């Protein structure tokens, strides 16, 4: 039995679900928005056991051999946008979510990925340090509440970008010439600035011993938001591939999305590791090798 947990309109989890259905793999897809329909009854006595049930299904968690979770922030879901923490439906849903996270952490099953393994992404500079320890280059980085430090940094590296350091999503932006007034705001919260690495982006998906690498051609500092982005499948140099495997393993991730950039002088830099990659953006819809590999991984015992 495979359990999928996420949103029914989420591309990555849907593609895996489609393949599992076609292969007749027993699968329970728990739509995050339908959490109120489910009851989770769990006992921990050294081993974890229990039942996830709804009107339509009942699954013994001891029979689940794989879990793929891609939950979204509950507060961001449309149905809960207007709720507060005193709302009964919200409370029950939050409790169910908490139990799903707990079970994902302690389940005797293949889990993509355990919540604790995904944790490094909650502090990007911390993760950057782990990336560096795997032998990958990282851009020069400062974190500061001093506008003058930022100006000095920009003077040294000429082109500088800034972005969020938590798991809150933000658009990567380049610090421009006319940012002096905005720079004063760094006093309110430590902010990360990085040297801009001019080059070509790569997204590398590691699934245990498999690698799927894509080259991304875009005119924007953040290709996710550009209209001219093109993606093509590539083979990485073997030493870079090895470091990506090591990085994913060291972070405890069975499946990861690693952001690399090759600079114009040929150096490889790593920016970030996504522990729950939205891989469909990089996958050719007609080929779908990552979805198939994921489905295969989840069905192996």
């Amino acid at each position, binding site marked *: 039995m495979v359990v999928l947990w996420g949103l029914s309109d989420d591309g990555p989890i849907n593609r895996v679900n489609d393949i599992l259905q076609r292969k007749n793999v027993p699968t329970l897809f728990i739509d995050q928005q339908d959490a109120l329909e*489910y009851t*989770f009854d769990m*006992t921990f*006595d050294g081993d974890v056991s229990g039942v996830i049930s709804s009107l339509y299904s009942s699954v013994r968690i001891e029979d689940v051999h794989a879990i793929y979770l891609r939950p979204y922030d509950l507060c961001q879901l449309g149905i809960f946008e207007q709720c507060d923490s005193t709302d009964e439906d919200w409370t029950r849903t939050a409790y169910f979510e908490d139990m799903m996270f707990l079970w994902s952490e302690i389940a005797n099953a293949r889990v993509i990925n355990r919540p*604790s393994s995904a*944790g*490094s992404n909650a502090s990007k500079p*911390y993760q950057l340090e782990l990336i560096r320890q795997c032998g990958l280059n990282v851009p020069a980085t400062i974190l500061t509440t001093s506008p003058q430090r930022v100006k000095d940094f920009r003077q040294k590296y000429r082109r500088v970008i800034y972005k969020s350091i938590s798991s809150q999503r933000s658009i990567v932006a380049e610090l421009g010439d006319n940012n002096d007034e905005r720079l004063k705001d760094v006093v*309110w*919260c430590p902010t990360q600035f990085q040297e801009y690495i001019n080059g070509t982006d790569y997204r590398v998906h590691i699934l245990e011993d498999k690698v799927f690498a894509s080259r991304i051609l875009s005119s924007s500092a953040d290709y996710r938001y550009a209209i001219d982005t093109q993606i093509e499948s590539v083979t990485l140099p073997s030493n870079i591939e090895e470091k990506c495997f090591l990085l994913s393993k060291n972070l405890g991730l069975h499946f990861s999305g690693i952001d690399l950039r090759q600079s114009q002088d040929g150096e490889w830099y790593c920016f970030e590791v996504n522990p729950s990659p939205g891989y469909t953006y990089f996958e050719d819809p007609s080929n779908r090798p990552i979805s198939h590999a994921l489905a295969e991984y989840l069905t192996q015992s």
Partner: protein
Amino acid sequence: MVIVFASQLDEMAQRAVAGWPKSRATLLTVDDLSTEGWFINSNDVNKSIIVASGKQYSVTELSGVVTLMPYIVEQELFKIEEPDRRYVTAEMTAFLHYVFTILQCPLINKPSAYNLTGPNWRFEEWLRACQRVSLPIKPYHHVTHGETNSTNNTNFDPPEIRTIIVLSNRVIVSHAETLNAKVLQLAKLAAVQFLEITFAEENGQIFFCSANCIPNMNNPQVLAALYENFEN
């Protein structure tokens, strides 16, 4: 200098810092994170500057950190406008996680993702860790649409609570001495310097009840041990 990271409203932390031997401790509050002066250079972390109680310190001046808040909450962000608070709490927590990780001095405790005071373990994860070091546990039962209880909870007499507190691989308080060695193993497994474990005794049987990674600065034994720990 020992840094004590605490809520601005934590009077116990303020008293503990005020009474620190040789005045060698200072408070770090969320207010300090909205103060000019912080500077971390990831290529050369020893040149980094932190701000505590409004004053700047080189990270090389720090002899220890005691963390009393697991994460930053919006209610602490007096200086930040309301719509920005959710974002800023996440950013500041992420920042401190990194800063506490790169420091070379002793930390009580080492942060983990989502928790600046130690491992972000739920009760069941503590149970699992207890089981690994052979500490006695009682089965625990959760139901999302109903009551959550320990199983077989038919004893209505309040259980007797026994506490063991360890700091830096040393037992500083123990009301269950036969379990001291196993609690030290548990602290090692959890990778924490400070750990307070309570056990409940029911019908002559003792079992794990709770785990706490945040030193109670109102406990004279804990405070004395902390003072001594950093003195050494």
